[in-house]
């Protein structure tokens, strides 16, 4: 049976201090807890393969720690592939692109990011289109600069065989009032879309309708659930809303929130989506439990609709 979707897992592992732990047993005996089971990329990649994930999406804030272990990112790629895991792409942030003078800096940063993605063998650069809304929304000029900046960044990606996917966040400066306008105004040759199912729902879009409307621009996904769709402006636009003081979670594993994933997968089948889809479990206390569970859900539940 021909597979259309390749599943990748978003890396929220934070710092992993070892490549491998050949003295695992002695290391385990030091503390005799499961602490020793989460301290090397060898283990993390094996868990990916063990849970049926073919890929991992790298987080840019992990690169510093990764480079202390794998100075040449091609080593990191080879290390992962040896364990049956490919790097599907990397997340990236555009900042200050709403001001014309910041566009060149953003293009330079994109070049550096794309270079890393190419070294890692990735195909996607999923970009958060701007800083937090709380620092002041987009005026007309800000919108036009954001479009231009995304186009410039997209061109750099396309020239290197990498797809830039706009990945909006519910607290981002590009928000509900101008979200669609900017997507439609950007150059479809260079600027694609990474549909983060939870983020667009929290912004206030209807997930399935949004996918149906923009399916030809959507080249990849961040699949995550939420129990808080259509959040009001005063929460989305507040300072630092992402991590809540009382530990409230915006994001849940697929099937633990309220979104209609079966509807979404029916549409993905209708439009014949092919390529990487990244499952993300941002905010889980136990990444492996989330990975094993979502591995089951995408294959045994959603896989019956489209795979």
């Amino acid at each position, binding site marked *: 049976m021909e597979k259309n979707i390749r599943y990748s897992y978003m890396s929220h592992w934070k*710092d992993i*201090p070892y490549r491998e732990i050949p003295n695992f047993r*002695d290391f385990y005996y*030091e*503390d005799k*807890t499961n602490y020793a089971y989460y301290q090397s990329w060898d283990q993390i990649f094996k868990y990916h393969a063990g849970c049926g994930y073919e890929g991992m999406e790298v987080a840019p804030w992990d690169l510093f720690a990764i480079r202390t272990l794998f100075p040449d990112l091609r080593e990191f790629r080879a290390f992962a592939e040896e364990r049956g895991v490919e790097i599907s792409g990397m997340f990236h942030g555009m900042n200050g692109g709403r001001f014309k003078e910041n566009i060149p800096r953003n293009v330079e940063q994109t070049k550096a990011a794309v270079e890393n993605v190419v070294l890692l063998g990735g195909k996607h650069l999923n970009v958060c289109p701007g800083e937090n809304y709380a620092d002041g929304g987009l005026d007309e000029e800000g919108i036009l600069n954001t479009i231009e900046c995304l186009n410039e960044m997209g061109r750099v990606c396309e020239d290197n065989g990498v797809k830039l996917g706009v990945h909006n966040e519910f607290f981002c400066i590009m928000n509900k009032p101008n979200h669609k306008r900017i997507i439609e105004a950007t150059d479809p040759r260079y600027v694609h879309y990474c549909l983060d199912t939870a983020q667009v729902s929290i912004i206030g879009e209807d997930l399935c309708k949004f996918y149906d409307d923009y399916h030809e621009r959507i080249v990849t996904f961040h699949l995550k659930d939420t129990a808080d769709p259509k959040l009001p402006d005063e929460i989305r636009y507040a300072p630092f809303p992402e991590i809540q*003081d*009382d530990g409230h979670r915006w994001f849940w594993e697929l099937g633990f929130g309220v979104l209609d994933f079966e509807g979404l997968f029916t549409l993905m089948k209708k439009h014949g989506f092919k390529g990487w889809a990244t499952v993300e479990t941002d*905010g889980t206390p136990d990444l492996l439990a989330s990975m094993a569970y979502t591995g089951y859900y995408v294959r045994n539940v959603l896989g019956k609709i489209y795979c």
Partner: protein
Amino acid sequence: MKTAFSLETVNTRYQEPNRNRVESKYYWEELFQLVGAGGFHAVELPYDPGFMGARCCFPFSKVVMDVKFGGVEGFKKVLADAKIDKIAGIFASPRAAGSVEQYVEGFKRSVKGMLGLAGELGCDYVTVSASPEYCTMGALLDKKAELLDALAAALGELADEAGDIKLCVRNEFWGILRGAGMHDFMAKVDKRVGYCVDLAHIKIAGEDPAEFIRKAGDRVGVVILTDTCFEDKDEVWKGPAPAFPRTGATQVFKDLGQGSVDLCAVFAALKEVGFDGWATVDNRQTRQVSRGILRARYALNAVEG
């Protein structure tokens, strides 16, 4: 001698189940209560200049204290409610950058920032690492003598600005002033600047902590009560991420009383040199901070008993 508990004990960086909890404020609100309940009424904070804003509620920067606790006074009140009435000190390790001048300028800027926050927090000491990790210093290593002289001079200037805050220098086992190398340097530094004696770092660098204390004498500014069983046979200190030896995974630091540091000898030496400053426990091994607090209390009771 007064004892404090360091919040460096809380792992904010490395993977472990439940790690995400440390990003939220609720975690810290309860943690302060648990520290107080463990009999520690003073804490030490890692200093964070706050570049990352307040996305995560690590209460180590002015911006987080402002955004999450309504400013320094609000932060101190939360601590006081948890029976923690003193922030004994803050510490940081500068990163290597560029030339000797650039590095020393960055060093001074960083320490000034720390002295500013320490003043607001009512700290008694500020600790700064003598150098970053050896392997990150690149070309600076070729101008070691010039760098150390410039640092000594800078520390003198900073002592003028410290007021009654005790400025201390810590020599990690992975730095250019590791182990006994510290004594010659401190001889050239303004008398007002003290040693930060971190027991585990001293031992790993091949020195006996009690001996080191006697040699430092009345220049001991603050003591960091840490433990270790690690013997650096493969010069791991020169390589990258020395706290995670490539030669074999191990926890380089052990919780107080769980390693091979002779605490009785250390306390005897401290008494001998008439030390009456802060002794701060920093349990970097256990992943359960509550266990770290109780292990610290147990170890101190055993030594003081």
